[in-house]
């Protein structure tokens, strides 16, 4: 490791430590004014009353503040629930808004300073660590030592990283009030881009984008000499930065609906929710364009592009989840399970999620067009179940938190309903396949080991069979790591694309199927 790399690693670790410590810096205190300013009209009076015992008090930490807050708030709600007065219960969660409003800290006063100390240092350190990596080595495959690495082979560092990610996602989704300090820290950036104060989602989007950029630079270095990997990485970096992060914020600045033009239903599961449709319909031609664009992507974009290029056009070139998996997740790709058993689970689970997403959307639409006369509550319950179980727990906590345990594509492989849809098109109507180069395979297993989707690529390669699998995201790494030049991602004629009984060439004595 060069000096610059060591400095970079040091800076990254300091930044990470600061990021973990910052939520614990500062005091909290609320007044009646703050409560009135941060609650809905219908709740203002009640909330002001419930939280009255907290006025004028100072709480030394988020834990202290939030525990007293919940005590007051829950005792009010529990009382009503025990009397079954459901319509008087306050279902809204004001903990984040009030913690944010009542936060007093140097972090709030000097957000840039703390931003630079934490995220800034981590990003800069990550950049320094990566930007000259492998400088003194010739271009080639850089997989040496992966299974001797604690981080990349489920060692103690891997366990710690996974635990950190899981805790981060749990806090982000269900306890964001604990991270208001971090949200304050990125407030000026949000104001700069969209003119609005930051939410926890802005914080998340910003970290997500910066992580893809820094680890994308790592990809450029790791796959030096491999143009396919370079272009693909540049593409996911671009789509994340522009389409997922900047454009939606800029739309908000221009008083338009927040919209990610590359997010496609059913991954974008709330696209047809009543409030989304209302937003589209109430925003004139721009809103209408978004609605039509979104539907066109589903009914034309997915089948047509997948027919010509395979699902890779989305999963490993455009998608944000794919973008994170292919950059931040790349060090963990070898941890995916290649067994036939895992493949079986994969097919059951991912297609169940697809069916669930379609059913949920169907119910939502019926509900919408029947003027909420039918199935009123069922929709809401379905939405909250899906949002909790699939949208947050599966896609977020498991999807990213499990990188160091089960590889970088857990969500894409087992959960993503859009991947399931793309996969069905890829399997049955596409020009994409991975071609094997005659009889050149030596069954070494590099391809299978480094397949992030857990495809046993070698099974096909050693039989001389084309690889046509619904799950393949076309990352191209099997082809890159093959030492004998056996695998090539190709778009070509549908004829002979699927060869169930291939014949390996090179033996003229007999022609038998493998």
């Amino acid at each position, binding site marked *: 490791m060069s000096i610059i790399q060591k400095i970079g690693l040091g800076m990254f670790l300091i930044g990470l430590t600061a990021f973990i410590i910052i939520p614990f810096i500062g005091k909290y205190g609320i007044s009646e004014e703050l409560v009135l300013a941060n609650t809905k009209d219908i709740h203002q009076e009640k909330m002001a009353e419930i939280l009255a015992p907290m006025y004028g008090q100072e709480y030394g930490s988020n834990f202290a503040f939030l525990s007293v807050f919940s005590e007051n708030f829950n005792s009010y709600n529990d009382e009503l629930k025990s009397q079954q007065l459901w319509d008087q219960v306050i279902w809204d969660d004001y903990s984040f808004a009030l913690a944010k409003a009542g936060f007093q800290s140097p972090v709030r006063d000097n957000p840039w300073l703390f931003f630079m100390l934490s995220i800034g240092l981590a990003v800069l350190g990550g950049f320094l660590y990566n930007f000259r990596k492998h400088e003194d080595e010739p271009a080639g*495959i850089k997989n040496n030592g992966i299974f001797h690495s604690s981080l990349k082979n489920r060692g103690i560092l891997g366990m710690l990283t996974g635990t950190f990610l899981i805790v981060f996602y749990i806090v982000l989704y269900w306890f964001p009030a604990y991270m208001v300090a971090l949200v304050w820290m990125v407030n000026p950036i949000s104001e700069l881009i969209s003119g609005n104060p930051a939410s926890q989602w802005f914080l998340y989007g910003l970290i997500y984008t910066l992580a893809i950029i820094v680890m994308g630079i790592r990809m450029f270095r790791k796959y030096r000499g491999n143009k*396919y990997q370079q272009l693909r990485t540049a593409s996911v970096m671009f789509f994340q930065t522009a389409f997922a992060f900047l454009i939606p914020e800029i739309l908000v600045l221009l008083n338009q609906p927040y919209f990610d033009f590359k997010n496609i239903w059913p991954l974008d599961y709330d696209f047809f929710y009543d409030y989304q449709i209302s937003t589209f319909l109430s925003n004139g031609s721009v809103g209408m364009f978004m609605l039509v664009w979104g539907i066109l992507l589903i009914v034309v974009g997915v089948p047509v592009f997948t027919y010509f290029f395979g699902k890779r056009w989305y999963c490993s070139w455009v998608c944000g989840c794919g973008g994170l998996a292919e950059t931040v997740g790349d060090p963990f790709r070898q941890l995916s399970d290649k*067994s036939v058993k895992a493949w079986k689970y994969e097919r059951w689970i991912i297609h169940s999620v697809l069916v669930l997403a379609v059913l949920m959307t169907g119910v939502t639409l019926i509900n919408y067009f029947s003027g909420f006369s039918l199935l009123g509550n069922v929709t809401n319950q379905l939405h909250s179940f899906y949002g909790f179980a699939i949208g947050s727990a599966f896609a977020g906590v498991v999807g990213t938190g499990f990188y160091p345990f089960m590889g970088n594509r857990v969500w894409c492989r087992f959960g993503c309903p859009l991947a399931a849809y793309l996969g069905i098109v890829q399997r049955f109507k596409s020009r994409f396949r991975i071609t094997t180069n005659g009889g050149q395979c030596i069954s*070494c297993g590099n391809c299978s080991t480094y397949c992030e989707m857990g495809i046993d690529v070698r099974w096909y390669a050693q039989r001389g069979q084309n690889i046509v699998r619904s799950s393949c995201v076309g990352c191209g790494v099997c082809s890159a790591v093959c030492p004998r030049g056996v695998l090539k991602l190709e778009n070509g004629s549908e004829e002979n694309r699927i060869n169930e009984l291939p014949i390996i*060439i*090179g033996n003229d004595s007999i022609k038998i199927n493998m």
Partner: protein
Amino acid sequence: MNQNRHVVILGNGISGVTCARHVRKLDSNCQITLVSGESKYFFSRTALMYVYMGQMKFEHTQPYENHFWEKNRIGLKEAWVEKVDFDKKSLVFKSGESLAYDILVIATGSKPNKFGWPGQDSIGVQGLYSKQDLELMEANTQSEIKRAVIVGGGLIGIEMAEMLAYKKIPVTFLVRENGFWNNVLPKEESDLVGRHILEHHIDLRLGTELKEIQAGSDGKVIAIITSKGEKIDCQFVGLTAGVSPNIDFLRNTALEVNRGVRVDEFFRTNLPDVYAIGDCAEFDKAPAADRRPIEQVWYTGRMHGETLAYNLCKTPVPYRPGVWFNSAKFLDIEYQTYGTVPPVWEESLVKNFYWEHPSGKVAFRMLMRQDGSLYGVNNFGFRLRHEFFDRAISENWSGEKVIAKLDQANFDPEFFAPYYIEIQKAFKAEFGGSFKPARKTFIQKLFGARV
């Protein structure tokens, strides 16, 4: 044919395993047992280096999941064979157990050559072929090694050098010939690989042989002496001067052996119901003009296995390998070959075309007969399509036709530099021809890597 005959295959490398799998496909009744002392489950020998370098775990080198064998009713016997009782048709294991067979297939592979160098059995001196060799190498390089010496410039030698380089162990690489692997590669290719070896900071010594290995009082290697009289201090010596059939336990028996087990073109030995395939088989007559009587390549092992399986279940056919092909990877540079490209040739009989990229890491050679028809090609640093050349050579295409269609032969990933265009231009400049070199596609112009 006995419906319940017991086919016992001795050795579970690629030859033995392929044979077992294909016998099972063709005959669902017979009993099949794969015997190996090396490893219960089949693994890919060629991938051992990746286990050492932490690119894979040993389990990743196993092409089939463990339940595969039971599902296909292929019995696995993990044991070393002491001797074969050909009269009683039975194997005797080192443990004293025995196993009766109706048909015996000998597929015991190779072992590293040792040429009687003084000190060759010292601690820290070893070859690399088996799983046990890998484990030994891991043990031998556990403690600090200040320098390692590798003797013999072939494919295993360069793999061992790469493995040691991963552990940051300085390597001196002794090669008897005046160019790396130049008994197989023509001079330019051999030089190309030689340069790349030096680029990886490996101390390549051409034209240098091992004379003697010196060991300390504890039996551990401390130095070697070269044929040039130089003493090199080292704590590890890799012997990679080729391999030879692993059949010592079959010598002085009724079975006829020479360097390997003698077989005819049906893999039959001199004894009934006893066959030999893979590295350990030695043909009475080389299978083709450009082949040797002992074939020690992964691909030929596989073909032996599938052909013998067919012969054990159907009307026997002679072994007829098709167009020769092979591949390897020298550190970061991939190599493929199709057809016949000898290291040297008679200038009057052969037309030679060689192209090398200015980087010195990408090269293409094509040999043609005097009438212009294709002999074979070597390619380095880029990939070519097996199917294309298999067809071109069997259909006796002219070299010009091959070059004219070279874009179809390209097997590099999308967006890679189109070397075939440069090759076409160079060929046209040297030999003429009526074809037009391919043009860069729009996408290649927009995104493609420059040549």
